[in-house]
């Protein structure tokens, strides 16, 4: 558990970066600090491991005052992941990961063995071990950064915009993998980001900070979306709140109807609807065929497919169910099961009915 107790950072010229912050990051959970530039989120994070020393107030690490020991000893117990990874260019990947164990005096062989384990854990091939950071892409370097932070198995991890410097596709992957990892490890994590969507996706609880270092609201993501405490938070959380909140509600069982299909490599049937769904051998949807484009009896091939529609998983969120309907070229949302096989299709109207039912249920 990490607790900010009246923590303040005031600079000699009078600027107050963090103003008497009171905040508790519970053990085993991800607490995200989010806010606009100048809100003191990074400063607050860096006060935990004393990269910035608080001007007044205390920061507690469970029952210990972080100021009660030398800074470098404190930091060796806390995992630290930063935006550009900050890997040591002159050391191999495995030695980078083993940095803190080396500092703690762990036997080199043991430390390296553990580093190899972590390398695989963050999803990197063991062949990367002997490489140097310059040979890795940004995303790969970030994974190493996370592995490095985990090497000494610290109970606490601090992460300062760790995924901001990579491209959106990689960022998405890293976020998903991070959640998976946290599911396995259960660390106490304080995470800073300027991206409200990332905060909502990753946080167990989210702290929204105001410029000048004040805490505006501390709440679980769903609550933040549905009940922002004031205009600032509402504005910061942004538009489409209602829509994004759907991402937190399970659709339950989506009512579906059977959807006619044609397999890849078969010839198109005559008649039927304007749009036909194509599936592969195992029944997984591949895309839509626009029958009026194709000649009679043409064999179904890849280039003919319209891939615009997203897929909703049975038992997934309302948001993905609605999106499947909205994005489908045919207007019918494709629903699949966990193994990717077609279950059936649904329509926007039906999903909206589900949504309204939930809203009514919540209101009454």
């Amino acid at each position, binding site marked *: 558990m990490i607790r900010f107790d009246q923590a303040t950072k005031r600079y000699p010229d009078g600027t107050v970066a963090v103003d008497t912050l009171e905040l508790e990051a519970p053990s085993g959970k991800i607490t995200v600090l989010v806010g606009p530039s100048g809100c003191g989120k990074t400063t607050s994070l860096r006060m935990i*491991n004393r*990269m910035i020393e608080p001007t007044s107030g205390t920061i507690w690490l469970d029952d210990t005052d972080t100021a009660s020991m030398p800074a*470098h*000893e*404190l*930091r*060796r*117990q806390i995992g*630290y992941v*930063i*935006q*550009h*990874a*900050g*890997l*040591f*260019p*002159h*050391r*191999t990947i495995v030695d980078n990961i083993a*940095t*803190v164990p080396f*500092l703690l005096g762990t036997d080199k062989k043991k430390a390296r063995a553990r580093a190899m384990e972590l390398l695989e854990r963050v*999803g*990197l*091939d063991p*062949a*990367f071990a002997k*490489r*140097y*950071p*310059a*040979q890795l*892409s*940004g*995303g*790969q370097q970030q*994974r190493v*950064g996370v592995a*490095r932070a985990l090497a000494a198995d610290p109970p606490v991890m601090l992460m300062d915009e760790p995924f901001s410097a990579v491209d959106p596709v*990689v960022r998405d*992957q890293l976020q998903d993998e991070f959640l998976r990892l946290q599911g396995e490890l259960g660390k106490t994590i304080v995470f800073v980001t300027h991206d409200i969507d990332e905060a909502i996706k990753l946080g167990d609880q989210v702290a929204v900070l105001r410029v000048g270092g004040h805490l505006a609201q501390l709440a679980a993501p769903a609550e933040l979306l549905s009940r922002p405490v004031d205009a600032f938070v509402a504005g910061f959380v942004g538009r489409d709140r209602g829509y994004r909140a759907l991402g937190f509600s399970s659709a339950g069982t989506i009512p579906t109807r059977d959807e006619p299909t044609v397999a890849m490599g078969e010839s198109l049937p005559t008649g039927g609807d304007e749009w036909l769904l194509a599936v592969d051998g195992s029944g997984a949807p591949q895309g839509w065929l626009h029958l009026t484009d194709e000649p009679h009896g043409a064999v179904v091939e890849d280039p003919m497919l319209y891939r615009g529609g997203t897929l909703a998983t049975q038992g997934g969120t309302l948001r993905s169910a609605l999106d499947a309907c909205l994005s489908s070229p045919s207007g019918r949302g494709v629903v699949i099961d966990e193994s990717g096989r077609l279950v059936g299709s649904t329509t926007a109207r039906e999903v909206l009915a589900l949504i309204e039912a939930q809203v009514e249920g919540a209101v009454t």
Partner: protein
Amino acid sequence: MIGDVFNWLTDPSHWTSTAFDTGIWDQLLAHIGFTLIALAISLVIALPLGLWIGHTGKATWIISVANAARALPTVGVLVLLVVIIAPHFYGRTNNGYLIPTEIVLVLLAVPPILSNTYAGVQNVEPSVRDAAFGMGMTGPQVLFRVELPNSLPLIFSGFRSATLQVIATATIAAYVTLGGLGRFIYDGLAQQDYPQMISGGLLVAALALIADLLLALVQRYTVSRGITGRTRRQDRGSRGPDSRTAVLTEELVSEAT
């Protein structure tokens, strides 16, 4: 003239020493000696100072002062120092002339080593330094385990530059009774013995080249491959998907080619 120079250099009597005249081997050794002493002293002064200034960011004015020293007229300073220092030494000793010479050479060698060491440390990526402290390294640990190894390319560059300057300038020792390869240049000019003079110049150039090659070799084996980029497979081009399968496939493919 080229023939005369060749003849001068290949004349064996020029390579050995008599009691009256010093030959090429001994002048070469003397020249190397002057150089090594100056470089050793300069390293001891400039390296720790550069590391400290780079690490703490304090007293950067020292760098400016050192760089200004590069503009000193070496022979002028040398004669001035000899006039001040040499009268304190009696009898058959070189020290009255060696000490001023070494002072001038050290003044020449310190600026490149100092400013390059400082620049090397300063140029370490801020995120790397931040991570080093964040991991829990103490100040000295950050300096010696992270900043210094990453500064080595620039430090070597400064040291090699200093070495070349010292070897080239150590010829001034000949102006003040000492030996070294400058003897052939100075004597050759005064005696209008141009083959001797040119040979002296060639020998200095050859020494400088060999020294730089040796240092390049040392640099190769000391600087981490992670910094120089001298790594076996340049995989930087393929910034493809990060999934494990993709990575493994990359590996297999590049192994096959």
